[in-house]
C-alpha cells in the first residue's frame, strides 16, 4: 500500500498520524487524570475546610486552611486524641502482616518450586481453598477461633487473619515468579555444599526481591484497608487503629468531616510513599508465568 504514496505524502501522513496519536494520548491522559482525582479532590477539599464551613456547598473551600491536618497531627480533637498511637498500631499490623506473609509465602513457594517434593502442588491448591468463603463472612468464626487461641483483643489476631488471606495470593505469585529463575544457580550452590536453607537464604530470597516487593505492597494494602476485623477482634483503647478512629466520625453528631478527611488523607500517605519508593520493582515483580500459556 505504502508504495502508491510519494515520499512527501508519506511523511506528511506519518506526521499527521503522529500528531493525532499524541493528541489521543493526551486526551486519554486528561480523562484518566480527572477520573482518578475527582473523588480524591473531594476528600482533600473537605480536609482543607475550616471548622464551620464543612456544610457549605461550594466547589472550593471558602477559606482553605491546614488547621484540620494540624489538629489531627497534634491530637487536638477527642476522636483523634490517640492518633499517633493508633497510627503506630496500624503500622505494626501492616508491617507484621507484610513480613509474615513474605516469610511464609517464600518458604512455601521454595518447597513447591525448588525442592519439588511430590505432591507439593497440593499445598498451593489447598491454599486457594481459602478463597471459597469470602473474608468478610468468616468474621464470626474468626471471633470465636481467636478467643479459643487466647488472642482476644490482641493485635496478633488481626495480623494472623490478614496473613491467612494474603498468603494464598503470595504463594501463587512467588511460585509463578520463581519458576522463571534458573535452577542452575541452585545446582551450582549445591555442588559448593550449600544446604537447602543456605540456598533459600543466599540465592532464592535475593532473586525473589522484586516479587517480594510486589507482594509486600499487596499485603500491606490488604491490612491497611481492613475495617471489619479491626473492630471485631480488638476492643481496648490501647489496641485502637486509624480505621476504627475513622469509624468513630461516622457515628458523630458534630460532623467534623474536615477532620475525618484530614485523618484519612494522612492515613493514606504511608502506603503511597512505600509504593512510590518501590515502584520500580512492582511491574517486574508481579510478572506471572501465565503469559506463556
Amino acid at each position: 500500500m505504502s508504495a502508491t504514496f510519494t515520499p512527501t505524502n508519506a511523511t506528511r501522513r506519518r506526521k499527521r498520524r503522529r500528531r493525532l496519536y499524541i493528541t489521543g494520548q493526551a486526551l486519554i491522559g486528561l480523562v484518566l487524570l480527572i477520573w482518578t482525582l475527582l473523588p480524591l479532590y473531594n476528600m482533600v477539599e473537605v480536609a482543607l475546610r475550616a471548622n464551620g464551613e464543612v456544610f457549605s456547598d461550594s466547589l472550593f473551600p471558602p477559606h482553605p486552611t491546614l488547621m484540620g491536618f494540624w489538629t489531627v497531627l497534634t491530637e487536638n480533637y477527642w476522636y483523634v486524641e490517640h492518633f499517633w498511637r493508633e497510627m503506630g498500631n496500624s503500622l505494626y499490623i501492616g508491617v507484621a502482616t507484610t513480613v509474615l506473609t513474605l516469610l511464609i509465602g517464600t518458604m512455601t513457594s521454595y518447597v513447591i518450586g525448588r525442592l519439588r517434593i511430590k505432591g507439593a502442588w497440593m499445598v498451593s491448591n489447598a491454599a486457594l481453598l481459602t478463597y471459597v468463603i469470602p473474608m468478610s463472612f468468616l468474621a464470626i468464626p474468626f471471633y470465636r477461633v481467636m478467643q479459643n487461641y487466647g488472642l482476644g483483643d490482641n493485635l496478633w489476631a488481626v495480623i494472623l487473619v490478614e496473613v491467612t488471606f494474603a498468603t494464598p495470593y503470595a504463594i501463587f505469585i512467588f511460585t509463578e515468579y520463581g519458576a522463571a529463575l534458573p535452577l542452575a544457580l541452585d545446582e551450582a550452590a549445591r555442588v559448593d555444599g550449600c544446604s537447602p536453607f543456605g540456598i533459600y537464604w543466599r540465592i532464592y530470597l535475593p532473586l525473589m526481591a522484586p516479587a517480594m516487593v510486589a507482594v509486600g505492597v499487596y499485603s500491606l494494602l490488604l491490612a491497611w484497608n481492613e475495617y471489619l476485623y479491626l473492630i471485631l477482634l480488638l476492643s481496648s483503647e490501647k489496641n485502637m487503629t486509624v480505621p476504627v478512629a475513622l469509624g468513630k466520625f461516622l457515628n458523630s453528631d458534630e460532623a467534623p468531616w474536615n477532620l475525618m478527611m484530614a485523618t484519612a488523607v494522612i492515613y493514606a500517605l504511608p502506603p503511597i510513599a512505600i509504593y512510590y519508593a518501590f515502584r520500580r520493582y512492582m511491574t517486574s515483580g508481579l510478572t506471572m508465568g501465565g503469559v506463556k500459556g
Partner: protein
Amino acid sequence: MTKVGRRTLLAGTAGLAAAAVLARPNIARAADSKTLEVWWNQGFYPAEDAAFHALVAEWEKSSGIKMNLSMVTGAALDQKVVSALTTGTVPDLIYSDDGTALTLPQAAWNSKLVDVSDVVETQKNEYSETALRSSQYFDNVTKKRSYFGVPFKAQALNIPMWRPLIEMAGYQMSDIPNTWDKFFAFFEPVQDKLRKKGQRHVYGLGYTISTNGADPNNLFNQSLIAYGGAGIVTPDGKLHADDAKVHKALVDTLNMLAIPYVKGYVPPSAVNWGDGDNNSAFHSKGVVMTPNDTISISTAVMDNKQWYYHDIVTQPMPHDNNGKPVDVMLSVPQGFIPKGAKNIDGAKDFLRYLIQPKNLGNYLKQARARWLPVMPSIVKDDPYWTNPKDPTILAAITQGVLGPTTVWPSVYNPAYAQVDAEYIWQVAIADVIHGMKADDAATKALKQATAIFAKYQTA
C-alpha cells in the same frame, strides 16, 4: 520417604492445632470476681465520656473491682455483640445505644441474658412507667417475661426547624399548625415560596425514608401511632394484621410519607440517607425541617449561639388529626448481662451504682440532654433540665420525660424488631412511590410481617 514425611508433617501440624484448641480452658479468662469486662457505647461528647470514666473510677474505689472498659462506637459494637452472643464468648456487661432495638428482645427471647430484676427493683419507684415497661422482655425458654435490661436513658422524636427559612418564606413560627397532617403540609408552600426567592435546592420536608439506620423507622412508627395504629402489636406480643384500624393507619402513614416525596417536597436522595445524612442536609440548610430521634442536630452546633438559641427551633411531635396529644414512642437503651459472664455479681453491683438518681443525673447532664433521663425526679430536682433559657432542652424534656410516652412494639415481641430491621415499611413506601396503591402496599407488607411473627409465637 517423602510421602511418609508428608503424612507425619500433616499429623504433626494437626496435633499442634488440636493442642492449641484444647488448651483453651487454660488460656480463656477464668471466672473471677476482681475484674469486670465491660463493653460500653462510646458517647457523643468528650464530657459525656469523661463523666462516665469518673463514675467508673468512683465505683472501682468503693467496690474494689477493676473494670476493663472498652468504649466502642455504635455500628462496631453491634457486630461485636452479635459475635459474642453467637459464640458464647462474652464480656460481663454490655451497653449499646442501638442494641435496644433488636439485640435485647432477640437475646432475651433466646434465653441468652441474665435476669436483672434485682437491679431494677432497687430504683423501681424512681423509674418512669414507660422505662420499666420497656425493659421487660419475653424469655421463650422459661416462658416468662422479666427484666433483662437495666434502663438508664431514653430518646424520642422531635423536629428541628430553621426559623430564618420559614420567615424568609413569609411565615411566622406561630403560623405552624399543631395537628399531624396540617403540620407536615405546612412545609410544602414554604418550599414553593423559598424556591421563588431563588433558594435553589431547598426542600420543605427533610425526613428519611431510606432502608438504612434508625431514622426511617422512628418516623414511620411514630406516624402509625398518630394515625391510630398503636394496636398493631399488643402487649401479649401478638400482631394484629387483620385489624381494620391498623390497616387504615398503615395506609395513611404510607400516603403521608410517599405523596410529598412524589410531589417533590422531600429531597430525592432521602431514599438513600443514612442516620447522619439528614443532619448534614439540615445543617447545610438544604431542608427546612427534619424529624430526628434526639436533639443532636441542635447540640452539635451548640457553640454557635445564634443557631442554637435562635435560628434552630425544636418542635415536639404535633398532635394527632383530632387535636389530641400523641403518645411519643420512647426508645430506652439498657445495659445487659449476657449469660456466660464471669462476674455477674460485679456487673450487677456496677449497674446498681449507675442507676442511683444522683449518679445517673450527673452522667446524663454531661451529654447535653441528648439523652433523656428515665427518672422524672432527676428532671424535677435539677433546674438544668427545665431551664427556660434553653428552649431546645426544655422542649425535649417536656415531651419525652413529662409528657405521655409509649413503648416500642419490639419490646412485646422481637419479631417486630426484625420487621423494622428488614425495613418492610420503607420498601412499602417505595412501592407506593413507584405507583402501587397504598392499600395494596400495606397488605403486602403486613403479609411479610405476619411471616416473621410466625417464627416468634408467644402463646
